[in-house]
């Protein structure tokens, strides 16, 4: 592993970030629009609710935490696709850069950009709706963050491997595939709200457990349930599932990378 090569890839994408309107929109524009729309909608519905519990907090909490998966999965594939769109893929992979260094660079890059997005969303939700994600989740926040980051990474790597296997004709998956797990992740509603068949699928998705516990923490904060009811086993299950999926995604990526080297797709892609 070479720190200099990893840094080269990270900084190359950081250079582009402020110059790219679409990237700024993904990092700050769309999350801001989401915060405003969902916040206003939930504030309106809250007025007609009988419960004193803040639904705004559940929705905004879900929204901010879902952004971790969404942005991570997108970043992994889109930064790779950026090399394809720029016809720079051969240049990059004809340097001594190893695939592992490229992936690590993507992880670091994503972590930097994601942290800034989450800080931005945290400030926006606090300014507009007085929802403080740090105070709400406390020391659970890094645990939830790390688990969702792993889910996003697993998905991102899986999509990246599919692009290596099927070429740019499946690049749409970079944006869309992760959306298919959102309904089963129970971001905005409890697992029990899903039909029985949906619940069975949801149990195989690591983020489901995280969002269940997110709600538990928020309920406990509102004194709706006992303070110490966080189900640690759920967080462990999520972690174990994430480890399994991430290992599989890494293996799949390496297989597809070697496969692309063998059948020339790495070259034909651009």
């Amino acid at each position, binding site marked *: 592993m070479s720190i*200099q090569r990893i840094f080269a890839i990270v900084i190359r994408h950081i250079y*582009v970030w402020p110059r*790219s309107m679409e990237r700024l929109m993904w990092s700050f524009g769309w999350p801001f629009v989401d915060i405003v729309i969902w916040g206003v909608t939930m504030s309106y519905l809250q007025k007609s609710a009988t419960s004193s519990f803040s639904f705004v907090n559940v929705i905004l909490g879900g929204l901010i935490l879902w952004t971790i998966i969404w942005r991570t999965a997108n970043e992994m594939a889109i930064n790779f696709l950026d090399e394809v769109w720029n016809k720079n893929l051969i240049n990059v992979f004809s340097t*001594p850069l190893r695939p592992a260094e490229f992936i690590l660079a993507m992880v670091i890059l994503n972590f930097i950009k994601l942290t800034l997005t989450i800080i931005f969303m945290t400030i926006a939700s606090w300014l507009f709706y007085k929802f403080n994600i740090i105070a709400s989740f406390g020391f659970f926040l890094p645990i939830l963050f790390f688990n969702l980051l792993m889910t996003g990474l697993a998905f991102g790597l899986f999509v990246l491997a599919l692009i290596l296997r099927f070429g740019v004709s499946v690049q749409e998956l970079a944006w869309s595939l992760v959306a298919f797990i959102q309904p089963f992740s129970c971001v905005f509603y409890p697992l029990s709200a899903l039909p029985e068949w949906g619940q069975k699928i949801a149990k195989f998705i690591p983020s489901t457990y995280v969002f269940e516990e997110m709600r538990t923490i928020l309920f406990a904060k509102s004194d709706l349930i006992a303070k110490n009811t966080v189900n640690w086993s759920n967080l462990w299950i999520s972690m174990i599932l994430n480890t399994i999926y991430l290992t599989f995604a890494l293996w799949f990526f390496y297989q597809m990378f070697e496969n692309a080297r063998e059948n020339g797709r790495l070259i034909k892609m651009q």
Partner: protein
Amino acid sequence: MDVLQAKNLTKKFGKFIAVDNISLSLKEGEILGLLGPNGAGKTTTIDMLLGILKSTSGEISMFDLPFEKNKVKILKQMNFSAAYVNLPWRLTVLENLYTFARLYEVKDYIGKVEKLIEEFKMTKLKNELTLKLSSGQMTRLYLCKAFINDPKILLLDEPTAFLDPDIADFTRKYILKRVKQSKTSVLFTSHNMPEVNEICDRVIFLNQGKIIAEDTPEGLIRKIKSCKVRLFFASDTKRAETLLNNFNYKFWPDNKDTIIELEEKNVGQLLGRLSLAKLKYTQITIDKPTLEDFFIKIARKKI
């Protein structure tokens, strides 16, 4: 000393054989031309030598090290430029070069980049976004990138395609200078035959994935025995054609001239016959065979 050796290299895509059992070597400080018609397997060979395409069979070694097992170590000492690859458009000239200098782990890369930018006369453009560069400026940037790590082996795939003659000339001269200065070995592909003739020490001809000729450019040209004699007959063109027909010369009209293709040793005999027949020509040019003639004959399988 060979810095690169490829033995029995084959690349198959399904049933299609792109490169068919070729072996080649590159000496230190040598410029080796890899020529052939489109689809001959030149780019596939380069891609395998860069490690971005896996060979179906065969072995590649560089600096006496097996390539696959020592990829990182070897790639640090190589570089590449091609007409069909770009650099990120939204990065400036400096940012692009810094990125690749870091990827190749170049020591004191800021100084190195400054020096290259100066050599390639790009100082005024260093803070320009790459997308704003003209194609000539872009090629100079690609060459800066190609020399950023002082490569011992440089693979250039049609580096002067799309360039105007002035910049193409600058590029060739720069490559020759670098080869002389630092003994860089270059594998060079081009469809520009005079260019290949000018800079290559040795040439390999590929056709349908196979090596069909290998020699110095002069050696390959010598394989063509015929030359072209261009004559301008002020009058008596009809009588001249009859004579040429009678002696079974291969000839054809070209504007007002007549071109006769024959073996170089028979030029004297032709001129003697014209003189005996009192056929007067006012202009004569003898075109010696070129590498382009060899290329065309090879491509049309006439050799």
